[in-house]
């Protein structure tokens, strides 16, 4: 069912659920999920809307390949205006709920307004109802998930839910689905909670139908799966070691930031690496990693399912954390570990569990703790602020206390809930926030890896590796190796990655397929599933169109080229040691070329010619 052609519009203020037809004219230009839902947001909201006001929209959207037999075809995204950044937000999640939306017959659900009391949306195919959630309010995401499953007596019910910090306004709250998958970034969970919407519970049994050319689709999908299976990364590396295999790689090449990006290179990296997750521990002889796991329809299975050492201080009196749950992915292991200077893998795994349990973005949380640690060590923050926590780099106890503070909404938890930008401004040291447009950095240092710095600076949702993962080329040699400390050619590389990713994020499949798939593998699957022309060129054009649409939204929301920048630390403070010693990010060289390559003015505004070319005029 490429598109179901059905949108569910939920007016939370009025308490109504109203079906409407999908705008097919837009679908043929913006495909689905990220692109199509952003088009709805752009058309229906003022870019200057307060993200936490009833006037903001909150959209859950699938892509045309979601729910089909395409490998990884289970993705969905949350699209809204971010309270963390004030920019466009689009957070993508796997698990199983995307498929369930599609099987219930909905391409997307648009929430508008604000409910006067806590509610959840219940969907069972055509049955769509807002129901009271007073009993769920104040519960963690895991508790609410369990209560909803019990209430409906349906183990197949799929649930997306926010935790307690979202209700309290923590600005990097995630929407958790299937217990440990997350639409994680940009505070999309905070928007959901601001509407008094605690959860969405969905069951779909309509099945998959409506593929435009079933025979061609079957062939294209099978070809794609074969490519994934035979590729060393997607067929072997990711299932065995997950994304965490990168910890030693990035540390080895001089690209791993540490201690709030004060340093590059972390001496404890190997203790928190993908390889370390396989090592048996002393207490019970079991490794941190229990097994790998897959989202709906995925033939890669990169997910980590882990346990914490039951004797570890973080969980020894908390049996509820003794079972296996979503384990460390690379970005989380970096932010919770290297960036805070903590190399205790059990502490990191526990903190990651709590991020899932209570719906927090571990990247922004870890980076905010790292910034607070620097504020603390600089004497700008004291134990009066931290509720007595000795917040020093390398302290696993401080890290654990910090996540529990945010989850419980304590005085210090609320300070951390501001995110690093607002918190560092509050303590008079805005330069210590390692963020772009207010969103914290992922796990690659832009001094040691030039292109990713440009990708961070120009990302439409603030610092993010998933908007243009140039690491694939600059470090991993996919599809071709480029020199990591070279800035020449990076503007073109960043644009190519950004446009292709925008298309993939709009299709309903996982961006990790692109470690093996090129657009020549993806386009035939979309083209067979959907009506219209989805050739390679048209797919790339749609990706570029989506990127420019997001840029126009941000520009209209008040962002300028001044916001396409990096923290001073990354532009001025050279790396002190290691293979990338002496490097700073050369954004000033790359940015003007990037604007030119994009067909934008020197001020970062798409020209009339570019808008015309992309049918955005």
């Amino acid at each position: 069912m490429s598109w179901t052609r059905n949108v569910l519009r939920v007016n939370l203020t009025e308490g109504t659920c109203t079906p409407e037809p999908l705008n097919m004219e837009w679908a043929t230009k913006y495909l689905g999920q990220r692109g199509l839902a952003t088009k709805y947001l752009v058309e229906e909201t003022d870019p200057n809307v307060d993200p936490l006001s009833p006037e903001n929209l909150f959209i859950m959207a699938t892509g045309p390949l979601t729910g089909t037999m395409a490998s990884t075809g289970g993705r969905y995204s949350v699209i809204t205006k971010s309270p963390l950044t004030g920019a466009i937000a689009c957070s993508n999640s796997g698990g199983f709920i995307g498929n369930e939306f599609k099987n219930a017959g909905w391409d997307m659900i648009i929430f508008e307004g604000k409910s006067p009391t806590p509610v959840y949306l219940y969907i069972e195919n055509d049955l769509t109802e807002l129901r009271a959630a007073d009993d769920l309010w104040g519960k963690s995401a895991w508790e609410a998930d369990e209560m909803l499953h019990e209430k409906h007596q349906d183990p197949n019910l799929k649930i997306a839910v926010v935790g307690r910090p979202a209700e309290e306004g923590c600005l990097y709250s995630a929407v958790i689905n299937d217990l440990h998958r997350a639409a994680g970034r940009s505070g999309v969970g905070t928007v959901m909670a601001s509407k008094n919407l605690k959860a969405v519970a969905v069951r779909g049994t309509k099945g998959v139908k409506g593929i435009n050319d079933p025979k061609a689709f079957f062939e294209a999908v099978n070809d794609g799966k074969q490519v994934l299976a035979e590729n060393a990364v997607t067929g072997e590396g990711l299932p065995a070691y997950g994304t965490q295999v990168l910890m030693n790689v990035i540390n080895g090449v001089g690209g791993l930031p540490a201690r709030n990006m004060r340093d590059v290179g972390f001496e404890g990296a190997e203790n928190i690496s993908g390889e370390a997750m396989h090592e048996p521990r002393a207490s019970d002889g079991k490794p941190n990693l229990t097994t790998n796991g897959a989202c709906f329809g995925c033939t890669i299975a990169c997910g980590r399912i882990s346990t914490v050492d039951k004797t570890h201080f973080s969980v020894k009196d908390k049996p509820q954390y003794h079972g296996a749950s979503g384990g460390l992915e690379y970005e989380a292991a970096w932010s919770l570990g290297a960036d805070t200077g903590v190399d205790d893998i059990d502490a990191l795994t526990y903190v990651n569990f709590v991020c899932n349990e209570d719906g927090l973005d571990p990247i922004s949380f870890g980076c905010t703790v790292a910034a607070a640690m620097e504020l603390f060590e600089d004497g700008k923050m004291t134990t009066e602020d931290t509720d007595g926590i000795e917040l020093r780099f390398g302290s696993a106890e401080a890290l654990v206390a910090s996540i529990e503070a945010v989850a419980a909404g304590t005085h210090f938890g609320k300070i951390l809930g501001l995110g690093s930008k607002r918190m560092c401004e509050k303590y008079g040291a805005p330069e210590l926030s390692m963020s772009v447009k207010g969103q914290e950095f992922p796990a690659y240092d832009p001094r040691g890896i030039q292109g990713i710095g440009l990708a961070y600076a120009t990302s439409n949702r603030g610092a993010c590796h998933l908007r243009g993962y140039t690491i694939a080329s600059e470090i991993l040699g996919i599809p071709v190796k480029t020199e990591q400390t070279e800035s020449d050619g990076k503007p073109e590389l960043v644009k190519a990655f950004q446009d292709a990713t925008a298309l993939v994020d709009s299709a309903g499949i996982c961006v990790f397929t692109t470690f093996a798939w090129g657009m020549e593998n993806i386009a035939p699957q979309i083209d067979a599933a959907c009506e219209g022309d989805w050739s390679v060129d048209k797919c790339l054009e749609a990706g570029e169109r989506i990127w420019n649409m997001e840029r126009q939204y941000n520009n209209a929301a008040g962002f300028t080229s001044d916001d396409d920048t990096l923290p001073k630390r990354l532009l001025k403070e050279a790396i002190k040691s290691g293979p990338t010693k002496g490097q700073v990010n050369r954004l000033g060289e790359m940015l003007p070329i990037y604007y030119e390559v994009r067909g934008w003015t020197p001020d970062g505004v798409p020209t009339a010619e570019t808008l015309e070319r992309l049918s955005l005029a």
Partner: protein
Amino acid sequence: MDKPKIKMHLELFASLMRLLPPGTSRHKREIKVPQGTSVQDVIDEYNIPLELAHIVLVNGVFVCEDRSAHILEADDVLSIWPPVAGG
């Protein structure tokens, strides 16, 4: 006469760890190689399939060009990964 030997370190990661001799602590082992040994010589010595020697670093710097021409020196750290990715 045998060439004098130098001490260096070999690091094999991810699925390549199984190629390290038993008793190796994690992924790193000190090895002795004759002077004049190249990166490719070590790859051959440890039976690392060519297609699996994907990321090859000496002291953290990529060796992308001719690995036979890159001669190792004392205390060098040679690190090798198979094709991997994440994010």
